[in-house]
């Protein structure tokens, strides 16, 4: 079955090239069918791969360049259940987005399809690659496709600004990553992750490795929109067409986290795995991201920008899970990724439906205008509850596993901060839903700032198809927490993912895979704390949403006190998210220097 991994890249890329070449020969509908079929076939193969990877490591050496005497020569895709699962989710979300786009976007459809397929191939390649420079190639490939897709609606300035900010910050991240590769290569003389890890496990780590790790991780964190590198994300996701947002926000942002975890457990666990410094920095970055982005989400009125901050918030929670550096934390991040990708895609799909119905997606302008749209409303609220993580809904199981990891490590305060983040983001989404679909609250709220300019899209949509796709994504996402056996399999996948020496032995020396334990097929139960926190977060989100809707009815002394204490921080927060790319680049340098400085202090000596 080692022939499957290259196909996950080859099928979408070849289809992208061929549809462009045959554009003037084939009718539009046939092309649509080919594009969707290619994406669906990729997804199906990813599921087959997932099934196989359960009991072995599927390693493919490109060009047949097997390692000789334990020295890697070529490029390998090394696929365990975690990487295969990622590919499956990526394929699923891209396929849904392509089906959604069939009637949603008419203009320049051929170019759009080609870029979406290229992004799909690149993301799959990234998730499976076991070679440091090859990761960089896929990272750049998906980025190039994403920049152009973000600027899709070139008739307005907003998309251009969003694409410029996205392109410049992420390119800079790519360059930092390239410098990191050069440093690692100078030290180890290898580009294969398993081999770099092997080399670094002998001898002292030193400043070179710490700096290289900083540059490589910061490159990924820029892609993953972690504070203070997150500023571009809200600009880019606010302006891209809804199905593009579903792919960017649902899966491409998470790619950064896949990179961080892959690199940590194949390479940097070797020199730094004995301490907790690397993980602690990631954990703190994740918690700050979760709370800050949750707050920013609450201050938005533009639905896609609100969703962008909600994405950043959940990315923060996942990074915190990875930063715990244990298998339940990683398994939790993994399960959260599954649910979050589908639910976020569903929410962006609903935003697109509102856009095509009313020509705008501003929470206040849409006040009460979507009363009676039951299907979109149901999708919106279900997805929101799933993203908050009410008991056994949506991200709950993943969040619960992260909680377990934090409790085992004796850091119970992590739980409180993370649940606060998801409650804040959830409150914003609940408030917007209640305003738009139920007509609750007031039609004006100066707290939410200025409206963004937006143009109506093409109206010629097949609405039932859009609604069906949105519902499908949400139903799948909501059900993740109650799929029997999924939790146990995620933990098993995480365990395997974290076994650095086992991975290296299988990849470099072709060692056989130890027998797979038989895993139970029952619903994974979580701790009582998680249940309490999850319930609390749901109640808190509802309360905050009500406060957002009816804050003028609060007693006067409360509003005055709140205004006095919160006005300045909110002003500062908004100022920082300035939309000016020069500021973002300054933040990138400060952030990289800060992360590197902290690691230098903690890891040296």
């Amino acid at each position, binding site marked *: 079955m080692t022939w499957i991994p290259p196909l996950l890249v080859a099928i979408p890329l*070849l289809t992208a090239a061929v549809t462009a070449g045959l554009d003037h020969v084939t009718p539009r509908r046939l092309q649509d069918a080919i594009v969707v079929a290619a994406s669906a076939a990729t997804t199906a193969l990813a599921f087959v791969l997932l099934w196989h990877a359960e009991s072995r490591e599927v390693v493919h050496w490109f060009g047949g360049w097997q390692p000789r005497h334990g020295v890697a020569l070529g490029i390998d895709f090394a696929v365990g259940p975690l990487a295969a699962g990622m590919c499956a989710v990526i394929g699923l979300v891209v396929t849904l987005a392509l089906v959604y786009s069939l009637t949603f976007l008419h203009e320049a459809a051929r170019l759009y399809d080609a870029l979406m397929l290229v992004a799909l191939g690149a993301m799959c390649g990234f998730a499976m690659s076991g070679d440091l420079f090859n990761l960089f190639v896929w990272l750049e490939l998906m980025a*190039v496709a994403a920049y152009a897709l973000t600027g899709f609606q070139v008739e307005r300035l907003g998309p251009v600004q969003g694409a410029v900010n996205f392109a410049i910050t992420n390119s800079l991240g790519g360059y930092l990553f390239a410098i990191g590769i050069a440093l690692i290569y100078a030290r180890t003389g290898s580009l294969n992750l398993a081999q770099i890890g092997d080399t670094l496990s002998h001898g002292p780590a030193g400043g070179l490795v710490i700096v290289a790790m900083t540059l490589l991780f910061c490159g990924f964190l820029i892609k993953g929109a972690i504070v203070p590198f997150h500023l571009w994300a809200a600009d880019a996701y606010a302006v891209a067409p809804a199905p593009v947002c579903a792919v960017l926000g649902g899966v491409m942002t998470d790619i950064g986290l896949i990179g961080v975890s892959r690199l940590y457990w194949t390479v940097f666990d070797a020199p730094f795995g004995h301490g907790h410094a690397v993980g602690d920095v990631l954990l703190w970055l994740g918690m700050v991201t979760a709370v800050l982005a949750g707050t920013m989400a609450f201050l938005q009125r533009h639905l896609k920008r609100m969703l962008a901050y909600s994405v950043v918030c959940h990315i923060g929670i996942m990074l915190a899970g990875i930063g715990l550096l244990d298998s339940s934390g990683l398994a939790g991040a993994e399960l959260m990724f599954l649910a979050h990708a589908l639910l976020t895609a569903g929410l962006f799909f609903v935003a697109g439906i509102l856009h095509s119905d009313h020509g705008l997606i501003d929470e206040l302008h849409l006040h009460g205008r979507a009363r009676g749209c039951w299907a979109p409303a149901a999708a919106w609220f279900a997805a929101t509850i799933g993203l908050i993580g009410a008991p056994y809904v949506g991200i709950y199981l993943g969040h619960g596993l992260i909680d377990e990891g934090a409790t085992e490590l004796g850091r119970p305060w992590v739980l409180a901060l993370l649940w606060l983040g998801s409650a804040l983001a959830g409150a914003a989404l609940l408030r917007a839903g209640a305003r738009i679909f139920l007509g609750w609250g007031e039609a004006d709220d100066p707290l939410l700032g200025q409206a963004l300019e937006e143009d109506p899209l093409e109206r010629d949509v097949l609405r039932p198809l859009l609604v069906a796709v949105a519902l499908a994504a949400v139903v799948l996402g909501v059900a993740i927490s109650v799929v029997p056996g999924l939790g146990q399999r995620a933990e098993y996948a995480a365990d395997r993912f974290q076994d650095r020496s086992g991975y290296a032995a299988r990849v470099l020396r072709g060692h056989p895979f130890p027998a797979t334990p038989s895993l139970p097929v029952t619903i994974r139960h979580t701790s009582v704390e998680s249940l309490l926190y999850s319930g609390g977060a749901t109640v808190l989100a509802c309360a905050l949403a009500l406060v957002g809707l009816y804050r003028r009815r609060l007693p006067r002394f409360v509003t005055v006190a709140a205004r006095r204490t919160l006005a300045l921080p909110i002003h500062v927060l908004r100022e920082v998210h300035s939309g000016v790319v020069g500021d973002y680049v300054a933040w990138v340098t400060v952030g990289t220097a800060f992360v590197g400085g902290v690691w230098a202090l903690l890891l040296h000596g």
Partner: protein
Amino acid sequence: MSRQVRLLLLGSGLLGLGALFAWAIAGLPAFGDYQGPYGFVLNRIVLPLRHTTNVVMGTNFDVRGLDTMGEEFILYASVVGVTLLLRDETRTRLAERRTRRFRDDTVRLVGVAMVGAGLLIGLWLMAFGYITPGGGFQGGVVTAGAIVLLYLVGNHRDYRPFRNEHLLDPFEAVGAGGYVIVGLAALASGTAFLANLFGLGTPGMLRSSGSIAILNWASAIAVTVAMLLLFAEFLETYVVPLEPEDAGS
């Protein structure tokens, strides 16, 4: 955020980054003392195993051929992306003014000579890439540049066939898609994706290196067409082709 705050942030960030770089450099092996092993192993095995005298190209198109496949698609995606981003620009250009044409015969003559030289150099770089320095990318850029020169110094009609997307798109597909197909062919024959399938030939001759030669040509086509489309997309937004009636005057 005011510019002062930004400069302050930037200054402190760069200072910190500079310190990190200095620390990293202190840990590097001294210049010229690099110990390998990866590249040195390839220097020893690529010529005997693949009959490719230019080990860099052997690395690019065989040992690390997957990177180059990604690179081809980066180029492809950027052409598609730039076309997407400039589609409004191209639409509005029709309202813009006309270009001046170079009327001077000497300029034309020099131009034509340069086009010829450029095409020859480009083709030479492509053809001998896996033997001597050069290769699909370099040759492709030079060839595309020469063709664009034809457009700039000569009559615009000369360039028009090359600008025709109906003609160019299939080539782009053949170039970038061809790379994938060579990979898939190897996979279908029961070996690994992008494995070298064909006879290796004599080192130093054009018929050497097996699949490397084919991949080199695929990437040469892909790069030439991509560059041509890219340049055209930018020049098109500036220079307007002449209407048929005044082209003859």
